[in-house]
């Protein structure tokens, strides 16, 4: 009895000594880091989803031996946003570069003192790198400060599984598939047809992707705002775009077409791997996610067709440098590198994130790009063709908060926890509360 106990104590003492020493070492190296900053600088990049920068990091590190880049990726925007907000407000914890999605851009652009004015580092000269509205959106509300450099925009299309379409006796050629569904009602009919032939699979992945896609598309074709009008008033119950998107989504769900999977979860990823559903509305940035989630086994099974009801844009981001960064100059230079036309082309090649740079959008490397994973679909052409004519949709500063609660109610309808009518009432009430307390 005694011996193991003594051993336990000795080990514990030894372990903690090691611990203390290591801690001391860590502190020492921390102070060293700041004092010899000139030798190696570590730049951290906070982002979400997939930005497709891995190759660019390597390239940049090779060209700048004193720079080391660490990416800190979080999958979902709804987890990413509060953490970023917390770190920005605390004045510590944020990366040297942070990605800001369009849905949260207004919120952060409204805190210009928390971000470096990139004009200080020659940002003004970069104007031609971006679509005009993207350039404007990257500025503080009064337009005096350049806060974010645009990365991508979210052109829209519809991804589908060719093998499942064939099983249902539907055409598999992308032009023919696109012709099946000029409108969302036509899409619904095809879904029902599909379901009658292949009852074991869903037609749509779940409620939220579809909903956001229809919402952004409808808003883009109409008043160009969603939950908040351009004076930041909550218009969730009066904006027809929201009701349209909500009702279309509910119709798909009620028709039994949904696989009832929640986006960005392991079950969703498994759904891709197993081919549980036949279509998914896919903004350009989602192609990279599909490839990762579905894995190599599904290569060549997916293809990309046009979206019912015309084009549109959902998503797209900016890169900003928080003032709390220890290396604002280096961070600004990296942000510029990542967001310049060549950087945008590289990100497009890696993850199909659609460039926001006119130069990149017309570059043959983009327009001529075919994605082998997606059956050699000419994704450059599919997404880039409408991109220059896209109109921005205004997303209020509490867009993310309201979007989350409305999405949650849709998920509850989709899984049968709420009736559509009750869900709509609840969504409006929840949105009002989120807008009031957020």
């Amino acid at each position, binding site marked *: 009895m005694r011996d193991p106990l003594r051993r336990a104590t000795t080990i514990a003492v030894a372990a903690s000594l090691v611990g203390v020493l290591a801690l001391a070492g860590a502190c020492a190296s921390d102070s060293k880091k700041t004092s010899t900053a000139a030798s190696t600088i570590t730049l951290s990049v906070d982002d979400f989803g997939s930005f497709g920068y891995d190759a660019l990091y390597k390239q940049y590190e090779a060209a700048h031996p004193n720079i080391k880049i660490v990416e800190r990726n979080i999958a979902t925007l709804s987890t990413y946003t509060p953490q970023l907000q*917390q770190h920005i407000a605390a004045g510590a914890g944020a990366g040297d570069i942070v990605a800001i999605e369009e849905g949260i851009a207004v919120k952060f652009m409204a805190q210009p003192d928390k971000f470096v004015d990139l004009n200080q580092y020659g940002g003004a000269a970069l104007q031609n790198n971006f679509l005009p509205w993207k350039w404007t959106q990257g500025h503080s509300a009064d337009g005096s400060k350049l806060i974010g450099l645009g990365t991508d925009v979210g052109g829209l299309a519809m991804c589908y599984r060719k093998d499942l379409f064939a099983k249902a006796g539907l055409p598999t050629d992308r032009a023919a598939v696109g012709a099946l569904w000029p409108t969302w009602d036509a899409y619904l009919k095809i879904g029902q047809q599909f379901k009658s032939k292949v009852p074991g699979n869903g037609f749509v992945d779940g409620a939220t992707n579809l909903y956001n896609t229809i919402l952004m598309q409808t808003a883009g074709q109409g008043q160009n705002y969603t939950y908040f009008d351009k004076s930041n008033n909550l218009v969730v119950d009066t904006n027809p775009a929201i009701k349209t998107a909500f009702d279309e989504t509910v119709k798909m769900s009620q028709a039994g077409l949904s696989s009832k999977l929640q986006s960005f979860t392991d079950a969703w990823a*498994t759904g891709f791997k197993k081919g549980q559903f036949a279509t998914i509305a896919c903004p350009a940035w989602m192609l990279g996610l599909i490839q990762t989630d579905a894995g190599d086994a599904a290569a060549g099974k997916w293809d990309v067709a046009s979206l019912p009801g015309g084009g549109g844009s959902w998503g797209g981001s900016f890169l900003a440098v928080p003032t709390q960064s220890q290396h604002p100059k280096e961070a600004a230079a990296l942000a510029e590198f990542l967001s310049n036309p060549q950087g945008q082309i590289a990100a497009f090649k890696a993850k199909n994130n659609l460039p926001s740079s006119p130069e990149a959008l017309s570059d043959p490397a983009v327009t001529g790009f075919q994605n082998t994973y997606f059956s050699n679909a000419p994704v450059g052409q599919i997404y880039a063709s409408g991109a220059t004519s896209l109109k921005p949709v205004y997303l209020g500063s509490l867009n993310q908060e309201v979007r989350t609660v409305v999405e949650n109610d849709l998920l509850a309808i989709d899984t049968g926890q709420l009736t559509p009518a009750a869900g709509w009432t609840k969504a409006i009430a929840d949105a009002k509360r989120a807008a009031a307390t957020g």
Partner: protein
Amino acid sequence: MTLDLQTAARPKPAPARPPRGAWRNRLDAKASPYLYISPFYLLFLAFGLFPLGYTFWVSLHHWDILGNNHYTGLRNYQLLLTDPDFWNAVTNTVAMFVIATVPQLLGAMFLANALNRKLRAQTLFRMGVLAPMVTSVAAVGIVFSQLFGRDYGLINWLLHFAGVHNIDWQAHQWSQWTAISTMVDWRWTGYNTLIFLAGMQAIPRDLYEAAAIDGASRRVQFWRITVPSLRPTIIFTSIVSTIGGLQLFTEPLMFNQNLMQGGSLRQGQTVAMYMYESAFQRFQYGYGSAVAWMLFLLIIIIALINYLITRRLAGGRI
């Protein structure tokens, strides 16, 4: 807990007498005790009591992420009492606590009774039941979320043999309660088993022998002798489970893929998660602090109810 205080108050034998001599010795004898206990009080003051009191202070304010604040009195508490999301979190927390604790303590008592026999490989059995306790808490959440998967989960696969098909464990309130309580029980039943076992071993054996002579069956012995004698242990474990169970956070968070709302309709959101959401995701520090205090209150109330029930059940005074 009552027992502790009694021992604490017991008069000490043989006080350490300060040796006569230099002022140094006297100082040593006078000051040392305070010096030795001071680290705890200093740290508790800085990182326990101060935050506690300050939480209350903050809860009386509208306090935002940038530190802007103004005094609002009890308004946060007023809002809280009419906040359906708060009451939903309270319901979830209490329900999961009850669903988890009752079978857990019964199961632990049952297992302890089995372990309280002459056994081969005694240590092996004891370690076996305790092993889940040393699993990383986030790991438990992740592993069980997979076990409870809707389409490809092991549990649904087993259930389909019984004719039950693809339960969406995340979608419903009852199913979240069940799944999360299962995780808690898996992790803590073994620990409570050992506590009960210790209690059982302290029961004089001749009580059982006498009962056996009187012809009482093992079952009768268990309910007539074991359970009543375990009264203090039962109270101890239920209080410990109350404090732990009502602070449930990591398991439901992992089960809901890191979503602080705990499901689309907040089916699995606990009070601790609601506090975190209010403070660190919606950045209403004042409101979050009010939730923290309500949680504290809830723990006290449930611990009291618990105490009264177990006292009544175990049939007597303590």
